[in-house]
């Protein structure tokens, strides 16, 4: 066998192995998602049967979605709650971390580093352990069992990562650009909005994605802090459906709920992933 033929064969083998491993790994990741989506389209009765094969045998049906929609106060109420909570959390997180990150990056003040480390170190507190005090505080503030209250909790939990992220984003913008804007006559807020914000947008996108995913999927705090059934967010609703009437589980409704909850996360991530990668690696290489 000639040398070129041998090296071509070896390359073919290498590439095949490479693609096989990649294919297996992506199958492992995608299978549960595909399973959920497929089951959600089975008729309600079929969805309760043993799960093989995972795809609908007796034809596609939207029965599960109809059941889901009728549950409790109606799916739109819960989706609305979840969307409100997530949107407010994203907004709050972005605004606060933008300003705090700018402050930590640009201003010199006493105990700056101590304060920064203190904020970062709060990620080490398991938040389940402070749920009781949080509950009591929110009750005192009259925010218990309100969406605003839960937004406050989510925003607070997002702070360490978000402030860290935004400080790094601002650190990677040269000070000269800011000085140039000041010399051009921009006030602090004009400069932040027109010069700095576009430059730290990848960081903002990352912070926004994280805040959205965290608040959209959060279960425990929502379960404990929201007591009124009308105010449930989607994860709490899912738990309520699962432990349905008399211990029976409507698997079809659960899977359709999962599919519905997954969609906005995927859409948002695909929309912002370009910024997201840039944000995470900001300042890593010059």
């Amino acid at each position, binding site marked *: 066998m000639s040398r070129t033929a041998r090296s071509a064969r070896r390359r073919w083998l290498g590439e095949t192995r490479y693609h096989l491993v990649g294919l297996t790994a992506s199958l492992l990741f995608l299978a549960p998602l595909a399973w959920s989506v497929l089951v959600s389209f089975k008729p309600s009765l079929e969805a309760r049967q043993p799960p093989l094969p995972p795809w609908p045998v007796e034809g596609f049906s939207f029965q599960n979605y109809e059941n889901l929609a009728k549950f409790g106060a109606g799916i739109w109420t819960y989706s609305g709650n979840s969307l409100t909570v997530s949107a407010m959390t994203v907004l709050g997180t972005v605004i606060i971390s933008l300003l705090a990150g700018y402050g930590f990056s640009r201003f010199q003040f006493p105990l700056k580093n101590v304060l920064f480390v203190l904020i970062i170190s709060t990620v080490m507190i398991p938040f389940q352990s402070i749920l009781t005090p949080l509950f009591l505080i929110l009750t005192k503030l009259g925010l218990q069992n309100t969406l605003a209250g839960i937004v406050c909790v989510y925003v607070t939990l997002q702070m360490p990562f978000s402030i860290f992220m935004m400080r790094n984003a601002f650190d990677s913008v040269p000070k000269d650009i800011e000085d140039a804007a000041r010399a051009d*006559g921009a006030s602090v807020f004009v400069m932040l909005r027109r010069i700095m914000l576009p430059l730290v947008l990848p960081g903002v996108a990352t912070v926004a994605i994280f805040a959205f995913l965290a608040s959209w999927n959060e279960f425990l705090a929502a379960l404990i802090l929201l007591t009124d059934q009308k105010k449930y967010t989607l994860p709490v609703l899912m738990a309520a459906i699962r432990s349905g009437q008399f211990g029976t589980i409507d698997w079809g409704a659960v899977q359709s709920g999962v599919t519905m909850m997954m969609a906005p996360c995927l859409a948002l991530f695909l929309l912002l992933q370009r910024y997201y990668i840039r944000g995470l690696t900001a300042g890593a290489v010059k």
Partner: protein
Amino acid sequence: MSTHRYSSEKATIELRDVRKSFGSVDVIHGLNLKVEGGEFVVFVGPSGCGKSTLLRMIAGLEDVTAGDIIIAGRDVTDLDPAKRGIAMVFQSYALYPHMSVRENLAFGLEIAKVARDEIDRQVDAAAEILKIGPLLDRRPGQLSGGQRQRVAIGRAIVRKPLAFLFDEPLSNLDAELRVSMRIEIARLHRELGNTMIFVTHDQTEAMTLADRIVVLRDGRIEQVGTPGEIYEDPDNLFVAGFIGSPRMNIVDAVYLPGQKVGVGGFVIQLDAPVASATENAPVKLGIRPEHLVLTGGENGLLSARIDFSENLGSMRYLHCMLDSGERITVELRGSADLVSEGTIRLTCDPQHLRFFSESGERLR
């Protein structure tokens, strides 16, 4: 406030006992300086001498610890940068990366709420002056270093400032581009006639651009003067050594009675007395490399052994060692003097000799 009223005005810039401290560290120690309207002044000094800090204080980007800054007769010490009527060009260009060249140029005018058609007119005029018309719709990332610096200068021009401040604007350019941009800035000064302050650590830029040079060291002014004065008549050893390439040679000598000076065994007669020198006291003798000439006779000034020689084509640098161990550099022009090794004897016209005290002060 409109930026228009500044147009083509020639503003004086005055620093009165200006100080700057970062915490307990003093970086500018009470400077006094007056820059005349339309003058091109260069701040030069080694890194860390405070020249950029001083410029940023004039620009308003750095607070003044004490003292006053007066631009065009107005005390601007506590004013925002934008209200001082200055425009600054940064070493890193500091263009807004997310905006096109046109938006970069227009930004300052938009902030000042200038009418749209007026902005367009000014931007086009600046682009015309700097020949960046074809680049107006590009982003800074798509430009070369020289083009970016042009845009940065353009951004300064459109604001029609009272004065331009340049913070080492040529340092990031390659050698060739630096020379052409230097000429361009000189041309710009001639055309616009504004007051300009230019910070650099490059003495060639200082010598070629400046009407007056301000030599700074450790936050103090060492000397202010025209390039000629600074070069020919330095006030102290620091200025003498800092300006001029290769550096001025400094040799230990003794000032002798009868207008004579003794260097390593030789005695030379001076044309005029050095009034402030003490007789029989040690002095530092400064001689520029180009003022040393080879001599065949016995009555030289210095005897030196050639260490190595550098041929630059039009001239030759001889790096020599004196018997006393001091190093000197000799600049020889023309091809006649083809010495490159051995011991040589050098002399110098006494009028080119500069005397300094042991502490570095100039003796005249």
